[in-house]
């Protein structure tokens, strides 16, 4: 263990890795600050560039964007009541009132300390929990993996159950997209419609880049997302005394970090729930709950610690079971598999150095993002003034040339444009695009496990109910479908009776 940790430390402090995590954090903060973009756009735009990198360095780069995005999102939320990332909306409840009182520094310091603490706490929980979960998952066979994958997918679908039909359609579409191209076991071309280009399949990179990068860019070209350009920032850097002042809420920091990690661990829950639950729990246990919503640094700190704990929390099921909890970790799973690394219980045994490098990189990323924002607060805050339309044109051209560069095929850029149009429509309709991405990423894994399971049982589907872990997971899947639907139905009936 100590030997692996030492080797991981050496791998973490290589020039390439340090540059990757610093650059990733920088990009993450910038896209987090810019309302309407967010870490997903940053990650997918950088995705084509990761193919030339070592897997550890590539993951550090993307994790930097993932974590940095949540750091950056708080700045416009506090200064302009315009959250950079959706979960920072909760931060604006107290952050913006503090800014109006002329205490923007207090709010920003609390948010930054919250983000940093949430990130660090969650990485330590990840380091502790991942081996335990991997130990449990070591006894998994194909039926258990299939049941676990189905459970994860169902959680995501049920998280958006107000759009259940649309969510299922998108999930089905994603699963179908994952089957296009030559089938590995049988070498049969599937749904290629007579074209040679389709035989290589529809890769994750053009699909994700199209859906998120180009789709979001088309929205940017059309809408003026920022509500204001005014900002109340009196200093270039953060005030050190205010940072120290925020540390007196250490109990709230720990509580929010733990809540955020466990919410992040559950597929489909997302960072908004983590932020909201942390905020509400801290509010309930605070000595001064009346101050919440009117401008208290404790509120900013709780919500930011909650949402910044999500990335490490989401890594727990990803690393141990190979099940991503959201679209961002789905992209990370894609990077793993493209590099021939398959997350699962054996990953922690087979690649201990890579895993420890990942943990250490996440710790470094949190430190780097914290320092960057503390030192260059004003330049970062000025990023919100960059024109949306200029950003749209830059992202569009970078995305398309980046996609072409991966396989030097213009066909992939064409796929990205088609997916971009679909992404634009889905964003306008406010449908859960995450279901589509989950389908594309998990499709291959689910199909493989399903066929393996049926091969073991010679075609008998009851195999999933004959093995205890698989049976428990199927029961849990059924419960997460049935219970919320019953609760919704009862609520609907009660409101009808009252109305």
């Amino acid at each position, binding site marked *: 263990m100590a030997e692996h940790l030492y080797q991981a430390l050496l791998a973490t402090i290589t020039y390439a890795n340090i540059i990757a995590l610093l650059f990733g954090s920088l990009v993450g903060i910038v896209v987090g600050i810019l309302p309407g973009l967010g870490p997903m756009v940053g990650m997918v735009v950088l995705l084509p*560039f990761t193919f*030339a990198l070592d897997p550890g360095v590539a993951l550090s780069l993307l994790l930097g964007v993932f974590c940095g995005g949540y750091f950056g999102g708080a700045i416009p939320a506090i200064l302009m009541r315009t959250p950079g990332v959706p979960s920072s909306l909760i931060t604006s409840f107290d952050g913006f009132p503090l800014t109006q009182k002329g205490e923007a520094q207090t709010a920003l310091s609390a948010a930054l300390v919250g983000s940093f603490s949430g990130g660090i706490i969650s990485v330590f929980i990840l380091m502790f929990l991942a081996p335990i979960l991997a130990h449990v998952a070591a006894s998994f066979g194909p039926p258990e993996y299939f049941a676990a994958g189905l459970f994860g997918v169902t959680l995501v679908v049920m998280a958006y159950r107000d759009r259940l*039909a*649309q969510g*299922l*359609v998108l*999930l*089905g*579409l994603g*699963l*179908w997209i994952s*089957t296009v191209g030559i*089938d590995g*076991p*049988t070498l*049969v*071309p*599937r*749904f*290629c419609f007579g074209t040679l280009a389709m035989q290589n399949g529809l890769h994750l990179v053009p699909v994700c880049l199209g859906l998120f990068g180009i789709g979001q860019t*088309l*929205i940017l*070209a*059309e*809408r*003026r997302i920022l509500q204001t350009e005014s900002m109340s920032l009196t200093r270039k850097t953060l005030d050190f005394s205010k940072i120290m002042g925020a540390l007196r809420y250490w109990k709230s920091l720990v509580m929010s970090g733990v809540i955020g990690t466990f919410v992040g661990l559950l597929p489909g829950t997302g960072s908004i729930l983590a932020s909201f639950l942390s905020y509400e729990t801290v509010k309930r246990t605070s000595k001064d709950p009346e101050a919440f919503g009117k401008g208290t640094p404790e509120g900013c700190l709780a919500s930011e610690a909650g949402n910044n704990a999500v990335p490490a929390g989401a890594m727990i099921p990803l690393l141990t079971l190979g099940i991503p909890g959201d679209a961002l970790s789905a992209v990370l799973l894609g990077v793993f598999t493209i590099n021939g690394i398959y997350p699962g219980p054996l990953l922690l045994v087979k690649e201990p150095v890579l895993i420890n490098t990942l943990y250490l990189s996440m710790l470094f990323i949190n430190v780097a993002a914290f320092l960057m924002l503390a030192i260059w607060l004003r330049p970062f805050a000025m990023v919100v003034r960059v*024109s949306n*339309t*200029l950003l749209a*044109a*830059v992202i*569009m*051209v970078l995305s*398309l*040339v980046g996609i*072409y*560069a991966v396989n*030097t095929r*213009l066909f992939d*850029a*064409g796929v990205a*444009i088609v997916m*971009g*149009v679909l992404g*634009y*429509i889905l964003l*306008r*309709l*406010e*449908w859960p695009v995450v279901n589509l991405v989950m*389908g594309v990423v998990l*499709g291959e894994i*689910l*199909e493989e496990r*399903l*066929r393996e399971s*049926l*091969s073991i049982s*010679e*075609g008998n589907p009851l195999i999933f109910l004959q093995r205890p872990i698989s049976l428990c997971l199927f029961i849990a899947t059924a419960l997460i479908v049935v219970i919320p639907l019953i609760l919704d139905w009862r609520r609907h009936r009660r409101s009808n009776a009252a109305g």
Partner: protein
Amino acid sequence: MAGKANPKSRVHDLFTAFLGLSAAGVLVSSPWQVDTSGPYPFYKGALIFPLLALGLMVLASVPSIIRLFRSSGEASWYLDGGGIPVKPIGVLTLVLAFLAGIPFVGLELSSFLFLAATLFYLGHRSAKVYLGMSLLLTALLYLVFKYFLDVYFPTPWLFQLLGG
């Protein structure tokens, strides 16, 4: 500017039905799209999973299709007030021209023309912005993709033609 999407709008049902019916079309044609004549039984074969995925799409879209056929005159088609997306359509046209332009005039000229045209179209009227930024970004693209990453780009047809 578009507002929040109206969840009651029939547009949702229309698009769900479109996806569901397209899936049904693919489902029906799948025996011709996937060769199942090999030695593998159905449960090990290449068709089982796509059929499940397409079946899920079709089943999930059935309520929307029924609602669409039953919709009365009171049905709302209002989505978000954004109207016809003229700007995105314009940008997409420019994007397609950009991609088509790469084999004709090369990455540099195609990128420069795309960026300048897009920025002008999106409202940047200052030549310093739309020409200067386009030039700067094209140089950046050249440096990153051609110089550092050494990515292969096809020799432009136009230059081949001019060069004889």
